[in-house]
């Protein structure tokens, strides 16, 4: 029974979407309740899974079904399977996804325009996010990965702000570019990897677990570790790693490739921003940890410094940009860039602390950024204005809102007691130790990255000071009675998030116990395998 739980998670929203398709469009609230019901069911299933999850085992709840098997004659057999499972990397993200998606549904309660389409897209998005976090087959992963793009594009392009077309097309093109890179690598891997269990015949497989094992590569194929061919300065595997890195870094987003994010966030409606920041960005980090590092361990060692450097640049650059933002949502978006830089830094360090910290950061940033965007949404709902300069002294009028803002801001700037602190400190420790332990990142990276903390404090406090403190005043067309405190629905969304970030900040052990074995396995695997593989340069 256990093995079908993941499939249940993935397909229940699809079934719900199908049901929603059949319902008449005028029963507006039925779609909301249907989606919420789906989310609640997912949460229940997830709790069931958490209860039976065993920290000591590697991949659990595995389900493997034949999906595509094509006999290509002399070309061998193309084999893709429906292969899903959970481990210490995906479980936290699944927990996060299910939780955040439920919050996003509650937050979508105010959507009034074309409700049917909206919720159907939301359900499809739900399924594809869960699918890509659990898929262990590259083709399946890629399918879900791409599938995510479609509802997201429409959700931004239809229910977005004034410049939504620009933002959605930018988002779409950027991500598509990344997808193409990933696709190239996927094809390369498909050509190069065979199924070791197939007797006699050559079976090309998409199984990610097989791809990680260097002995499964067919000799003299493009991505074979022993292949002496060079493409320019590097061999095929290094290029493939770089392509994957860029592909996932766009999603992450890493600094030179991040400009879709602020625009998409500014234009997207609140629940979409929440999903985008809390879940979609994580796919980038997830992909790096799941695919890029274990499949190309020697490239990960070789390019680790690059990944780490880009992480540091993202941290500093995102923070600086956040400081110069005038729009609250844009500020939060840039802070996301900055925080996701920690994920890169931690992964690049290839120390257990660093990788654990990265995954923890993905989780914690999911919660915190969701909260931040909800906060921006609350303000936007009231006044249709997100400019920081418009407001001052909001704390006098909106007391509980200010409390939530304080929690979110301080959680985001890494105050101890909140989950962000644990994540960041682990990343820092890992990154710093990296030089002595693995020799990948110089210590200076970690030291420079601490600047990000200072800048983070600076922009958040500055914002607090400008918007919430001082005498009460609003500019422009906003009347004072538009400013009122949180209502019950908004509290329902914000309080669990605040509780979660506090809880995981004070008692990190339950989550760390899940992540840690994975991080340990990953780092050991990458280090040992990567060092055994000769680097043809």
């Amino acid at each position, binding site marked *: 029974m256990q093995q079908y739980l993941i499939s249940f998670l993935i397909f229940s929203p699809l079934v719900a979407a199908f049901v929603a398709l059949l319902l008449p469009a005028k029963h507006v609230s039925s779609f909301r309740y249907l989606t919420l019901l789906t989310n609640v069911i997912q949460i229940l299933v997830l709790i069931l899974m958490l209860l039976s999850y065993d920290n000591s085992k590697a991949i659990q709840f595995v389900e493997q079904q034949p999906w595509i098997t094509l006999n290509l004659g002399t070309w061998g057999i193309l084999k893709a399977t429906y292969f899903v499972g959970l481990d210490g990397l995906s479980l936290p993200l699944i927990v996060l996804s299910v939780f955040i998606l439920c919050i996003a549904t509650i937050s979508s309660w105010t959507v009034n325009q074309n409700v049917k389409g909206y919720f159907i897209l939301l359900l499809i998005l739900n399924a594809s996010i869960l699918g890509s976090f659990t898929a262990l087959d590259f083709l399946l992963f890629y399918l879900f990965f791409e599938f995510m793009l479609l509802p997201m594009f429409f959700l931004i392009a239809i229910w977005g702000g004034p410049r939504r077309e620009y933002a959605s097309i930018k988002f779409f093109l950027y991500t598509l570019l990344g997808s193409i890179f990933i696709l190239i690598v996927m094809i390369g891997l498909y050509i190069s990897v065979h199924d070791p269990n197939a007797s006699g015949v050559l079976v090309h497989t998409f199984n990610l677990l097989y791809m990680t094992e260097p002995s499964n590569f067919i000799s003299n194929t493009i991505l074979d570790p022993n292949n002496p061919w060079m493409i320019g300065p590097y061999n095929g595997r290094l290029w493939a790693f770089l392509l994957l890195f860029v592909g996932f870094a766009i999603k992450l987003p890493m600094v030179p490739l991040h400009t879709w994010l602020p625009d998409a966030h500014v234009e997207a409606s609140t629940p979409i921003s929440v999903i985008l920041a809390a879940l979609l960005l994580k796919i980038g980090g997830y992909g790096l940890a799941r695919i890029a590092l274990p499949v190309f361990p020697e490239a990960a060692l070789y390019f680790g410094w690059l990944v780490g450097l880009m992480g540091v640049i993202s941290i500093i650059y995102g923070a600086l940009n956040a400081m110069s933002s005038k729009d609250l949502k844009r500020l939060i978006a840039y802070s996301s860039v900055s925080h996701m830089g920690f994920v890169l830094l931690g992964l690049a360090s290839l120390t257990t602390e660093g990788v654990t910290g990265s995954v923890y950061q993905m989780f914690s940033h999911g919660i915190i950024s969701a909260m931040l965007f909800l906060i921006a949404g609350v303000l936007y709902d009231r006044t249709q204005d997100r400019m920081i300069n418009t407001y001052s002294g909001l704390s006098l009028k909106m007391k509980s809102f200010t409390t939530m803002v304080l929690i979110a801001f301080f959680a985001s700037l890494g105050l101890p007691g909140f989950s962000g602190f644990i994540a960041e400190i682990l990343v820092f420790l890992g990154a710093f130790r990296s030089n002595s332990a693995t020799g990948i990142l110089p210590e200076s990276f970690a030291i420079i990255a601490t600047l990000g903390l200072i800048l983070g*404090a600076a922009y958040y406090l500055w914002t607090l000071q400008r918007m919430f403190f001082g005498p009460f005043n609003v500019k422009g067309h906003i009347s004072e009675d538009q400013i009122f405190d949180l209502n019950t629905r908004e509290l329902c969304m914000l309080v669990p998030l605040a509780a979660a970030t506090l809880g995981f900040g004070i008692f990190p052990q339950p989550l760390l116990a899940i992540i840690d074995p994975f991080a340990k396995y990953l780092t050991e695997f990458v280090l040992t395998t990567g060092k055994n593989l000769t680097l043809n340069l």
Partner: protein
Amino acid sequence: MPLVSFLLSFVISEKYSWIVSFTAPFLLLLGALCAAFVFFYLPADQHYLREVLWFKVSDHAISGGLFVNNLSGTMLLVVNFISFLVHVYSVGYMAGDSSIRRYFAMLGLFTFAMLVIVLADNLLLLFVGWELVGFSSYMLIGHWKEKPQAATAAKKAFIFNRIGDAGFLVGLMILWALHGSFNINDWSSPHAPTPWQTAASLCIFCGVIGKSAQFPLLSWLPDAMEGPTPVSALIHAATMVAAGVYLVIRIFNLFTPASLDIVAIVGTTTASIGALAALGQNDIKRILAYSTISQLGFMVTALGTGRPDAALLHLFTHAFFKAGLFLAAGSIIQSLHQAQQQAHTHFDVQDIRNLGGLRKKLPMVFLVFIISGSSLAGLPLFSGFLSKDAILTGIVSWAGGSVSWKWFLAAILVGVSFITVMYTFRMIWTIFFGDEKRTDGLSIIESPIVMKAPIIVLALCSLWIIISWNPFMHTRWTSPGLEHHWGVTTFSIIWVVAAFGVAYILRDKSFQARILQKGFYLDQYYQAITTNIGLKMTQLTAWIDRDCIDGLIHATAYAQVLIAHVTGWIDRALVDGTVNGLVSFVRGVGTVTRSFQDGKIQLYIFWSVFTIIIFLIWAML
């Protein structure tokens, strides 16, 4: 015992859950009693440790543990006791404030965080408390958040702290890389000094610089006086700023000689800057703030000279007399405020130039000021004398026999203690002696008993008895290694008295040099740095983002569109051109076929028959 301490923290957090604010002082009293219990019943030279697993990364477990020894026991007592007194005082001072719940909650959180610092057995936990202290101080400084200056000051305090904390964090990273552990007790034995060790200790000292307002990160402390006065007393005089000193004492083993030298230099610089700046201030709270900075500089210098025990002693005495001074100042401010409200006049009650001759109207406060101020100035028979004496003794023995730069530092410190006397005297003289200035004609009522009581208690604690029965001996506190040096004691007595005399002579002179008033323009430098570099950087990145990256993307997009246009033109001109013939033909056919559809029966017939004929011809040929 640990359970008691645990309970202590728990009790403090309990208050966090919005119980009515009057329970807060009571709970604090409980806490203070527990701390006293801990302090007096803890056997000397023993420590108690209780660890709970906090979290685990790979094989390194990071525990949350409580660690109590003599040192932390003392600190525990100080923190709890002063915190208790401040709570009591606040009940009076903050009466009628609309957000009193938040105020007490934050005071509670602060005390809790402070206790975490005091009791933590590993640096990470200590860092947690460290940051939480910063956070609660942020909230308390910005308590009157509708005042823009308060918000700015709060922000400044937090960011300055944060800068120090970043250094602290780097230190943590270095230690983690070196030892794979944060446990303070693991480093109890001094290591061989390595460059990394020096770096680590200096980085952690960065945190101390931020928190204890040392040079160059000192300018936030005077600004932090925007907060309520009890907060200034608790946080910015007695406890939080002392946390830095405590931290260094706690991990003293970690510091290498090289780093200690730097610590000493920083401390001396701070002490002199603080003292000089205090001389130039007119705001009563700012005087006290700069004096705090100066005294902290003393402590840090003591640390740098390898005398953590002396530093602790000074920390201890300073906590009491400075808290007393702050609270007394707060009491003046409040009394005058009330008087002002009755008389409907308005002037800045914190400006000492507006005050004068208050000794008759506020005799009790005057007394407290005299006692605590004397202690600050280091007059004999007061606790301050003892601790300063200990520091000076330490520095003299550190400087050694030969003349070196160390003597230079010692000389500066001696000078600083001279200035300390001067500014203290100036402050007290201006406020309480002479003629009444703006306060003339105001009927001033003294503060209620809840405010008076803590002040008196603190003033009493500033007497020498608390420290040692002998008013000239400090040896009970200091380690055996430090000989009591009668020569130094004698010298300091003479020196202080001389300073007192000079101060009396110069009592009516004002030190209005702008450089002093502005605290050596440090703020302006920071302003310049942040605006010139920081804001330029943000503008630069924003520009890069908008123009370079987005510009590039737009350029590629435009290029794409351009290419699309070119290919489109090619399509139209060449491909379509050839096709166009076809197209025009097809258009002809189209118009013809259109006629099939225009309802003219005869054409329908024509075309159908025509087709049949064509088909037949084709079929036959």
